[in-house]
């Protein structure tokens, strides 16, 4: 069993409910214990940092200080939280004066941070600690034949924390493949989804989303998989608007990687929050279950490991 402090982030409890549910659901079968950070607060996200950098770092630092008490790596399933917390952590580790200032603020809440915590994204934990090989040995049934476009988005790989190629990342591809599914060629895998510009520049963002969907569809993907709740929301919730705007008819479910792993582990779709996905993942589920039924009736359950 591997132990981690868990920072769900706000999305995993709201717009990206499926992310939070599935991350927790797959933890046990994969021998991870995600201990939720008690009394965690907003990571600060990008907007705060753009307006008031020092204050935003202090806000993030409160979470780091809480995690340091327990001493475990701080794991988050959200790409935005990952970048924000990592950035704050690096600033604090590299600039003692800033650390002193922040600690002055934290002292009010009886907290102190020393810079000893590692901030990690759940994708890298799955890839480096749990490893694709071990996941492959634990899945209940392979997702063979399922064609998936692995979508990293920007914040998982940029700025560069040295974990994956910033232009051509591959960790997510390997995770998809270890489940038996096929990761299709997806040249836009690390391209911007538009982020929060959906609120202010919708037209522009619809164009970005459209090219992502188009590229995934052209490469034969049956669905997209992403770790990022912001990407997931944009691609999932705005898909119908893209269709209306460009007279297209995309119907590509956008799953969280944790949901996909959960499906392969044999976890019930509802426990993975699949009912909260907007573009219905029904066809993908049918594909998986039909295959399993077929295999079962033919006495050849594809059990790995």
């Amino acid at each position, binding site marked *: 069993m591997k132990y981690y402090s868990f920072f769900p982030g706000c999305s995993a409890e709201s717009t990206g409910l499926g992310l939070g549910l599935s991350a927790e659901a797959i933890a046990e079968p994969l021998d991870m214990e995600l201990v939720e950070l008690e009394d965690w607060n907003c990571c600060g996200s990008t907007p705060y940092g753009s307006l008031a950098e020092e204050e935003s770092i202090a806000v993030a630092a409160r979470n780091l200080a809480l995690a340091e008490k327990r001493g475990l790596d701080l794991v988050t399933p959200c790409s935005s939280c990952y970048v924000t917390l990592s950035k704050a952590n690096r600033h604090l580790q590299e600039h003692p004066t800033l650390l002193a200032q922040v600690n002055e603020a934290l002292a009010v809440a009886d907290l102190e941070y020393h810079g000893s915590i590692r901030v990690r994204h759940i994708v890298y934990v799955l890839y480096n600690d749990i490893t694709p090989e071990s996941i492959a040995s634990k899945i209940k049934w392979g997702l063979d034949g399922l064609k998936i476009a692995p979508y990293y988005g920007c914040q998982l790989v940029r700025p560069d924390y040295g974990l994956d190629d910033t*232009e*051509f990342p591959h960790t997510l591809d390997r995770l998809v493949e270890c489940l038996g599914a096929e990761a299709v*060629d997806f*040249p836009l895998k690390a391209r911007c989804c538009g982020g929060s510009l959906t609120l202010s520049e919708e037209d522009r963002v619809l164009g970005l989303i459209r090219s992502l969907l188009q590229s995934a569809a052209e490469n034969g993907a049956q669905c997209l998989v992403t770790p990022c709740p912001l990407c997931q929301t944009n691609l999932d919730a705005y898909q119908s608007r893209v269709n209306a705007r460009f007279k297209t008819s995309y119907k590509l479910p956008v799953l969280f990687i944790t949901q996909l792993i959960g499906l392969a582990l044999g976890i019930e779709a509802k426990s993975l929050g699949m009912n909260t996905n907007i573009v219905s993942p029904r066809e993908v589920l049918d594909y998986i279950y039909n295959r399993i039924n077929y295999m079962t009736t033919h006495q050849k359950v594809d059990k790995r490991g």
Partner: protein
Amino acid sequence: MEPRIGVFICHCGSNIAGTVDCEEVARFAGGLEGVAVARDYKFMCSDPGQELIKKDIRELGLNRVVVASCSPTMHEPTFRRAIQEAGLNPYFFEMANIREHVSWVSVDKLKATERAKALVAAAVRRVYYHQPLESREVDINPNTLVVGGGIAGIQAALKIADSGNKVYLVDKNPSIGGHMAQLDKTFPTLDCSACILTPKMTLAGSHPNIELLTYSEVEEVSGYVGNFKVKIRKRARYIDLGKCTGCGRCVDICPVKVPDEFEQGLSQRKAIYKPFAQAVPNKVLIDPENCLHLKGLAKGKDVCRLCQKGVKGGIIGCETGAIDFEQQDEVIEVEVGSVIVATGFKLFDPGVIYQYGYGRLENVITSLEFERIVNSAGPTSGHIVLKDGSEPQSIALIHCVGSRDEQYHEYCSRVCCMYSMKFAHLIKEHTSAEVYEFYIDIRSFGKGYEEFYNRILEEGTVFIRGKPAEVTNIAETREEEGKLIVQFEDTLVGKQRRLPVDMVVLSCGLEPPGDVEAVGRMFNISRSADGFFLEKHPKLDPVATMTDGIFLAGCCQGPKDIPDTVAQALAAAAEALAMISRGKVEVEAATAIINEKLCTGCQLCKNVCPYSAISFDEEKKVCRVNEALCKGCGACVGGCPGDAISLSHYTNEQILAQMEGALT
């Protein structure tokens, strides 16, 4: 004889004196036991500097000398010669390296001075125990081995062979010619590469003093300067070279088609094939991995053999009986006095730069592929066409692919700017396409190069300063549809731009070939940080290596263009010829000595000796060192379990004294 030691501290201009207080070090050395005189001087290696040492030896009766200056690899021979000229045995000398080991790596002057003192004290204590040694001379074998048959190897081999000396020219490919044989034109004069290379290849193939060993690889090198023994594996071609006339009939009959390496996989060759039209030797060979008969033989079946038998009612098979499916690899041993390593380069594989789409997007090609496409003997007969056969309307050339990029190679590959501009010229000559050169900086440094750059500018090629971020086929506008779009920052305008084109040529850099490590180990050549072979001195000894008798030529030492390669090849030939005409070479006097009283005859030392210099005396049951073969590496000293071997000039007494000196 009571030691009278002279200590000479060099300032090396400000190289040492800038960080080390040389006067203070000299004062300190003057107080050490056995030191008769200690001086500091601006440049010890200069004539007046050497004269100073000689004068002191004569006038003060010095019998030991310590010079504290640079690395012994730089000037030990200089100072040994100087004291020899003053009448001392050259081994009564010790060098303290206070430049590379102290001043160049220190900032704090006080600490640096202390460290310099420690090194000087160590040298003084050591030289106290030095013994006179006699250096020996050995004869030089006048034969030379040239490894690699590209333009560098060919040029060096021809020059040496013309002087009347024998050369073994080894190439692992079935033909000599190297990369230059694949090029179309050469910058800046636009000579046809084959036209200037082929006569030299033919000459090398027919020269009475050159033994051509193609499709062969060096397997083992032993011996030392002047007397190397080299094992070479001649791979089976399954063709009797004496009988093959190169008529090519067998090639026409062969039913197997595989990608042609020479054409960069852009066209196909047969399983029995001639590497290219002007190949030297102009003979065929069989590729055992694809030949139906040879593959069948492995399974005990007799299939195909059409090249031998001919086709019923059609072309007849090989008339001279040159095809020999039974042929085996052959290992030969040759003896040579020196070796010229000219193993060339490998083109950077742009597939790893995913965002440029090589291997993923059609019509994104490498520079070497473009050389073949534009070559009239190439797969498209010199027509610049897209994968669908149509002529491109616009072509982007991306410079510095894999070069000047910290993620891949930090160095500049030195040829890409020029060959890219050559491409621009050839495209304008062959088509009406627009040409865009994406560059970081234009480096046109050679003779006639800047003039060539100006010519290309005048021809109307568009130069865009900015390294593209991406080549994509995902269109954002109608004009971009069906095109390759280059996304880049135009750094002269300061704007992000997109440019739709039909073809993208990646001007890939040069990198060391895949087997560079193995070759380096075999010939005992070090490599620099960029992975290429390291020359003895970057400025003053650019073709020699740290191993005596092994020389470098061409791109295996670093990326370079043809003129520089040829110049370096001729320099390497001159080095080899200088050795040959001297006839003798002085070898290290420091050799291992076995104390026969202590030797138990276990022969461990015999097994560890890399120079096969140790033999076993069956009668006395002890091991002996052949001093002519011993290089003084010391491996046997460490390997001897009975402490029976000592190394002259590296005795326990000397090394312990040196350590004591450094520590007190």
